């Protein structure tokens, strides 16, 4: 199976990464060689195998629903690329 340019552009869109045509062509070459390598997995019969999702196969621990950190708004906003007092600011999303 090979990944064509159209698919590359679709994946880029899903990934929220803008790419130009030159970059898309590079990625087409790289991803195809990587997937050729990945597809050796098809040689293995896994019909009766249970997937391994995590090594620590324990259930998540429960904890009390208690606030532990308070009044850290300023600390959190400090790293924001754009802010307005108490909020993160993004380009306008409603007309």
């Amino acid at each position, binding site marked *: 199976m090979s990944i064509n340019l159209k698919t590359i552009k679709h994946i880029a869109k899903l990934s*929220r*990464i803008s790419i130009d045509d030159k970059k898309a062509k590079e990625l087409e070459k790289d*991803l195809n060689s*990587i997937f050729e390598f990945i597809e050796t997995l098809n040689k293995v019969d896994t019909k009766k195998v249970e997937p391994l999702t995590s*090594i620590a196969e324990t259930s998540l*621990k429960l904890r009390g629903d208690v606030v532990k950190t308070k009044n850290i708004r300023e600390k959190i906003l400090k790293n924001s*690329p754009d802010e307005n007092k108490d909020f993160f600011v*993004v380009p306008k999303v409603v007309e």
Partner: protein
Amino acid sequence: MSDIINLTLSALIDKIKNKELSSQEITKAYIARAEKSKDLNTYITTDFENAIEKAKKFDEKGNFDYELPGVPLAVKDLFCTNNLKTTAGSKILSNFIPSYESTVTQHLWDEGAILLGKLNCDEFAMGSSNETSFFGNVESPVGKKVVPGGSSGGSASALAAKLTPATIGTDTGGSIRQPASFTGTVGLKPTYGSCSRYGIVAFASSLDQAGPMTQDVSDAALMLDVISKYDLKDSTSVNFKRGDYFKSLSSNIKGKKIGIPKEYRVDGMPKEIESLWQDGITLLKKLGAKIIDISLPHTKYALPAYYIVAPAEASSNLARYDGVKYGYRSQGENLISMYENTRSEGFGDEVKRRIMIGTYVLSSGYYDAYYLKAQKIRRLIKNDFDEAYKSVDAILTPSTPSSAFNIGDKTDDPVSMYLNDIFTVPVNLSGLPAISIPAGKDKNNYPLGLQLIGKAFEEQNLLNISYSMEKELSFKNNLQDWWIK
């Protein structure tokens, strides 16, 4: 001063405790050497002024009972450090100043250690040569224009060049062990769940694990004592009975059963690696261990499975970098184009490749064929180890299929770069502990490492076997300080 930087971590601690050396003397010695070693490009951020201040405070009223009393340490720039820039080697985090501390680095400071600065690494720990860092290549002290390995390349280079007495890295597919092998140092990847992942910039959450990188095995045990602790802030942290690793070190390995997996004898492996491995086997026999041939039949599928699982998790983990709450932001005419431009400009090529692979294998219609398939292969790989561990206590392999290569040699072909991790990746997929110890040199005088893989949560056993081997190997890097200006 040259005496100071030649001391191992444990020797340094003894001298501090005996008041033969002050924290200030030691800290200044490492800083002076770092100032002369800028060409290696090991540091992304230095915190030297604060380090001297902290050392002064320690000398005035420090607690000498700490495990790391007044010891200066530099760490990989993947660990969040409170109020000190943490970049993960990426442009997208190039201005990020965390408001909290990672659990493992907090353990270091709680035991008296002093932060020197943050060490270079591949961007988001994705790479095997430290060539994907936004902050440039790192050179290895073992040779000019030679890569230190990756992703913990800055850590390995700084350690080998004696810019820090020990360090910590992270290992998702070999990122501690491969650079340790390339630089003649010791690198330990603990069992998944041993060291907290809280505050470590996430790459692939089911594989990531922090661990020590040190000059010798005793130092690795000492560092593991400090950083391996149960942590409620990491939901995959495991509450098992941890050993007293340093105090319990023993070089008596008589009767230990060591497995030799035939599948690690790969095509095209250099003769010197083959003979390094053979010498390791001979040495273990001499030390009284029993050598047993084993089979790990699914080994060759580990790397392709890894290149589904790791990018899939990465694409999900890296979705948070959108230019809104922190990090680099580009412009765009609307919200979506701002996201797309931010991520396009903020991530480097290798990171973009992996996000795209991950997005693809998780996308509708491909999930079963790729992601689910890889998880099933992961089960088979873990089953191979479970089966082997019915008859052996540990497994010996080479750490890497080659010695260190030159900067630029493998950057054009992603798959050839990925093959570096062929011997280390199965360990992460199975969550097992493994250590790389320097065991010899190649024809260029570049170091070569041997890897010991252990049973889950049996780090002590691994440390003891490598400790006993290290004594006999008496490896010396003998670097010529060519990079000192």
